[in-house]
């Protein structure tokens, strides 16, 4: 093995030198090259897509991207008569995502960026958006701080923050009882869920009979499930993301726990449950959108039909999230008649969508998307390979309650206007 050491050392040195040179180049480029935001009329408008292409979050980002591309296809790939190009780069890690944002802005000359699948990456990306002065519309990440204390003028966010979803969902989880077992991922998203629900449980006079933080990409949950079985809680309050939730539910069923102790979680994706299969799927969750919700407005029903025609299966909630985020950006650029960042931001702040019964918009004070959430429950008997949920409630019932439920920007720690 010793023969390999000099080569390995040289390889490390060369890699380090190359990486340093590349890093220096990027840094210097960022300082000296002027930022060009105005695209020429005869050139396509480029919009960046920053979504993970691999990892456990990839099943969700595939749908986010599908929805984004469908929104563009609906417009014949044009905004205001000009062709549009989507440039999709990966977000492999917070640092990698920041580097790819720089590439999108400085090399690809994009006028806005859509993406942010994981909270850990999105928190880093929004700081970069402010530095680069580029509108960033985060479609998936749910960490509270994104539009809370970390908010900035250039960042918008579609998903409902964890703290708000927790407030919406807690009464339904409390229906099962006040002895909760917490099983949350040990990163921003899971810790946020853990903190928010602990506060709500304490206010309700409940107790946490267990509290396990789980490493990301845990392949085996059997030991955690044995602990839960021993603790005998009224409900398991989950905070594990994407593929990890699917794995947990499969093993939950395997150990005979399905139907014995209810499982609750917020901010899941339909694909997480589809991956579990009808035999093992269980639980009560929050969702932003469900393709079979009878109150979906006509344009969303058309989106469902178009998606099904194109992909041969119904759109997951993430597809809708990609679609509505993209629509809001495309329509705002068209309305602004400009690709200048501040003009796009102004148009996004005034954009409105949805129906009279369920309107949605970005709030000016923190750029948080305000919309009603759904409480969905896995059906007792699943006969369709995609139709897993019954919609149990729409929260809040009254549109007028949205602002209060989301909490004012100041209360959430966002001081965008004073910054």
């Amino acid at each position, binding site marked *: 093995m010793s023969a390999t050491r000099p080569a390995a050392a040289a390889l490390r040195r060369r890699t380090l030198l190359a990486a340093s040179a590349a890093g220096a180049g990027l840094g210097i480029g960022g300082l000296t090259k002027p930022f060009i935001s105005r695209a020429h009329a005869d050139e396509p408008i480029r919009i960046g897509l920053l979504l993970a292409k691999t990892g456990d979050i990839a099943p969700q980002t595939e749908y986010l991207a599908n929805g984004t591309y469908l929104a563009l296809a609906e417009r014949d790939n044009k905004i205001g008569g000009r062709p549009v190009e989507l440039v999709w780069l990966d977000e492999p890690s917070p640092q990698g995502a920041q580097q790819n944002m720089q590439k999108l802005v400085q090399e690809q000359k994009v006028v806005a960026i859509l993406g942010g699948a994981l909270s850990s990456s999105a928190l880093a990306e929004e700081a970069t958006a402010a530095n680069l002065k580029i509108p960033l519309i985060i479609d998936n990440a749910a960490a509270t701080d994104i539009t809370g204390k970390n908010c900035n003028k250039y960042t918008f966010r579609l998903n409902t923050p964890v703290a708000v979803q927790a407030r919406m969902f807690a009464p339904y989880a409390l229906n099962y009882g006040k002895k909760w077992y917490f099983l949350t991922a040990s990163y921003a998203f899971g810790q946020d869920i853990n903190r928010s629900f602990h506060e709500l449980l304490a206010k309700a006079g409940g107790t946490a009979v267990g509290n396990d933080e789980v490493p990301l990409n845990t392949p085996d949950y*059997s030991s955690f499930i044995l602990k839960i079985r021993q603790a005998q809680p009224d409900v398991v309050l989950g905070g594990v993301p994407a593929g990890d939730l699917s794995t947990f539910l499969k093993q939950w069923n395997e150990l005979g726990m399905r139907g014995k102790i209810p499982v609750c979680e917020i901010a899941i994706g339909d*694909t997480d449950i*589809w991956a579990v299969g009808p035999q093992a799927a269980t639980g009560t969750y929050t969702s932003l959108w469900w393709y079979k919700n009878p109150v979906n407005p006509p344009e969303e029903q058309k989106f469902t039909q178009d998606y099904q025609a194109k992909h041969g299966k119904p759109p997951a909630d993430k597809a809708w999230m990609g679609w509505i985020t993209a629509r809001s950006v495309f329509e705002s650029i068209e309305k602004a008649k400009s690709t200048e960042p501040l003009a796009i931001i102004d148009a996004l702040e005034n954009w409105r969508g949805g129906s009279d019964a369920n309107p949605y918009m970005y709030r000016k004070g923190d750029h948080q998307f305000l919309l009603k959430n759904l409480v969905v429950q896995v059906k007792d008997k699943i006969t369709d390979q995609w139709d897993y949920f019954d919609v149990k409630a729409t929260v809040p019932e009254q549109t007028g309650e949205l602002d209060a439920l989301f909490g004012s920007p100041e209360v959430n720690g966002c001081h965008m206007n004073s910054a």
Partner: protein
Amino acid sequence: MLDLILSQVANGLVLGGLYVLIAIGLSIIFGLLGIVNFAHGAFFALGAYFALTLYDIFGWWAVVFAPILVGLLGMAVEHLLIRRLYDKEPLVSLIVTFALALMIEATIRLIWGGIGLPFNPPPLFAGFFIWGPVLITKYRTTVFLVTVLLLIGLWAFMQFTPFGRILRAGSRDPEMVGLLGINLPILLTVVFGLGCAIAGIAGLLAAPLWTIIPSMSAGAIMPAFVVVTIGGLGSFPGAVIAGLLVGVVTTLTIQFWPEASGAVMYVFMALVLLVRPRGLLGERWERFE
């Protein structure tokens, strides 16, 4: 508390059995071919995907066909790619097989898509056994038994058949085996296929427990490397002991310090290597010294 610890130890042994199954193919390929196969996790994932697809056509016969298909694919990969690496230093095989792993994962994504696919164990294996404080599911017990049978079969094959003796001799002194008129390249192709087929078996047995997504290969390769490294590179019994130890250490960590359960196997590996750099049962290999 003692009840729960006993239960976790039993669960750890069963989990360790799965780790052994994932690692054993990697150990065989390194032990006999000297190749550090970073694509082992990708063949593991292919076992799950092939089983899923073939199940729709052949029903539970897919359990037989899927590993065979993975093995045949492994033989093709050895013939086209791996055999060019035998006389290269280990770092080259590591890099090439890493690229192969990425390529296979991308191909899986292209064919089956990125979203998770459901796959559940047959109803025959539903339910569990309860002995006092110990709860073990029928399916995991079956996986453990399959692992034990497979290990006994492999050991007997290597020890008592002429083919096994040639393989062991060829792994130590390929030149001498060649001079004796034995067509070693064909044997090496078969060994690589065998290692991949065992990865395929592990993949299909893990499919009802894990989420079937393209990145499941990454979830398999790291425990496999840890087990093989702790046990001693290329050591068959070393991989078995290491796998069971890693399983028990992981489950006990979950009981007392769940946040550290993802990292504990790496800490355990570091400790073992500090005390015994060749691993628990690792031998001195003249080819790599």
